[in-house]
C-alpha cells in the first residue's frame, strides 16, 4: 500500500474512504480541509475578534495552531486563547501546563478562568456532594463561562475544537432524547437567531474525525500522550461515542453519513425554530441568555455548589 498522491509510505487510511496518505500529504489534506470549512461556511469575517476555547488537548491545540497559521498576516483579525480550569486533579492541571508553554511558543495571548474563582468550588470539590453525571454539570458551567468571558473580551466569534465525532455524537444524542430543537443550534457555525448576548461559535475542525485530529497532533509533534478526562466514561455522550465507534468499525463512513444527512436537514430546522422559537429570556439572577426564567448555571450554584 502506498500514498495515493506520491507513492510514499502511508501513515493513515482516511476514515470514510479507501484513500491512504503519507505524512506530508495527510498534513496538507488536513489543513486544506480546515481552510475549506472556514471558507465554505464563512466562519471568519473581516475585523473578527476570535476567542479560541482551548484546553491543552489535541483538538483545541491543533485548532489554535491552525488559526494562527491561516490568519498570519491578517492584521484586521485578533485571536486570543481562553481556557477553563474546571479543577480536575491530574488531568486539567497537566494539560494547562502544556497549554501555557504552547501559547508562549506560538505567541498567542492566553487567559485562564477557573471554576474555583468564578463559582467558589473546583469540579473535584463539587463532585464530592453532587451525585449526578459529572459531564452534565461540568458542561453547563463550562459553556456559561466560555460565553460570558468571550463577551467580556468583546469577541465576535468563539472558535471551538469540536470535530466530526463530537458533532455526530451530539446529533444522535439530541435525536435519542427528543431534543431536535437543540440540534438546530449545531453545525459548523452556531446560532438560530442573532442575539448580542450569544457569541456565535465556529467549528473549523467540523469535517475531521477524532482519529484524524489525533494523527495530525501527533505528526505535528504537539503531543505524544492523549489523556482522557477521568469523568468521561460515565457520560451519556461516552456511551453514544462507543456505539458510533462500533458502527463505524462495522460500517465505515457511518459518522460522515450522520453529518452529511444532518447538514441537509439543518436549514429546515433553523428556519422552523427561527419562526417558532420563544423569545430568548435573560436569567433573572445573572442576566445571561437562557431558555427559562433562571439559567441552569444559577440553579446549579444555588442547589449544588453553595451547599
Amino acid at each position, binding site marked *: 500500500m502506498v500514498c495515493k498522491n506520491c507513492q510514499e509510505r502511508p501513515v493513515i487510511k482516511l476514515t470514510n474512504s479507501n484513500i491512504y496518505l503519507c505524512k506530508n500529504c495527510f498534513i496538507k489534506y488536513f489543513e486544506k480541509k480546515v481552510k475549506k470549512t472556514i471558507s465554505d461556511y464563512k466562519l471568519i469575517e473581516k475585523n473578527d475578534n476570535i476567542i479560541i476555547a482551548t484546553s491543552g488537548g489535541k483538538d483545541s491545540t491543533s485548532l489554535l495552531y491552525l488559526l494562527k497559521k491561516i490568519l498570519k498576516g491578517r492584521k484586521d483579525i485578533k485571536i486570543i486563547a481562553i481556557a477553563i480550569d474546571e479543577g480536575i486533579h491530574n488531568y486539567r492541571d497537566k494539560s494547562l501546563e502544556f497549554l501555557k508553554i504552547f501559547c508562549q511558543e506560538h505567541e498567542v495571548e492566553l487567559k485562564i478562568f477557573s471554576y474555583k474563582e468564578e463559582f467558589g468550588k473546583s469540579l473535584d470539590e463539587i463532585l464530592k456532594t453532587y451525585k449526578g453525571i459529572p459531564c452534565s454539570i461540568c458542561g453547563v458551567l463550562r459553556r456559561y463561562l466560555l460565553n460570558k468571558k468571550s463577551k467580556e473580551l468583546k469577541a465576535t466569534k468563539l472558535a471551538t475544537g469540536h470535530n466530526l465525532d463530537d458533532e455526530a455524537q451530539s446529533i444522535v444524542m439530541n435525536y435519542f432524547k427528543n431534543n431536535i430543537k437543540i440540534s438546530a443550534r449545531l453545525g459548523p457555525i452556531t446560532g438560530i437567531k442573532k442575539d448580542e448576548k450569544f457569541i456565535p461559535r465556529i467549528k473549523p475542525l467540523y469535517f475531521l474525525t477524532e482519529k484524524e485530529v489525533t494523527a495530525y497532533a*501527533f505528526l505535528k509533534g504537539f503531543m505524544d500522550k492523549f489523556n482522557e478526562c477521568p469523568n468521561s466514561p460515565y457520560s451519556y455522550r461516552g456511551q453514544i461515542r462507543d456505539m458510533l465507534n462500533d458502527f463505524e468499525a462495522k460500517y465505515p463512513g457511518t459518522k460522515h453519513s450522520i453529518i452529511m444527512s444532518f447538514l441537509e436537514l439543518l436549514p429546515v430546522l433553523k428556519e422552523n425554530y427561527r419562526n417558532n422559537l420563544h423569545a430568548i429570556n435573560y436569567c433573572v439572577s445573572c442576566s445571561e441568555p437562557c431558555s427559562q426564567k433562571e439559567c441552569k448555571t444559577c440553579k446549579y450554584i444555588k442547589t449544588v455548589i453553595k451547599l
Partner: protein
Amino acid sequence: MKIYLEKTNEYKDVEASTVKELLAKLKINPTTVIVIKNNELVSEDDKVSNKDEIKLLSVISGG
C-alpha cells in the same frame, strides 16, 4: 511482541503480522486508536514484527 497501551498504561503480549491483526487480537476498535511503530505513525495495513516497538494511543479525550 509487547504492545504498550497508553490509555490503561499496560503492556500486552500479542503475536501478529499486521497492525490490523494486532488490533483484532486485542479486540481494540481501529477507530479509537492511532498506532505508533518505532515512534512513527502507521496505518492498519502496516506489517509488524517482534523487533518493533508498538504503542497504541487512544484518540478519545473529552467528556
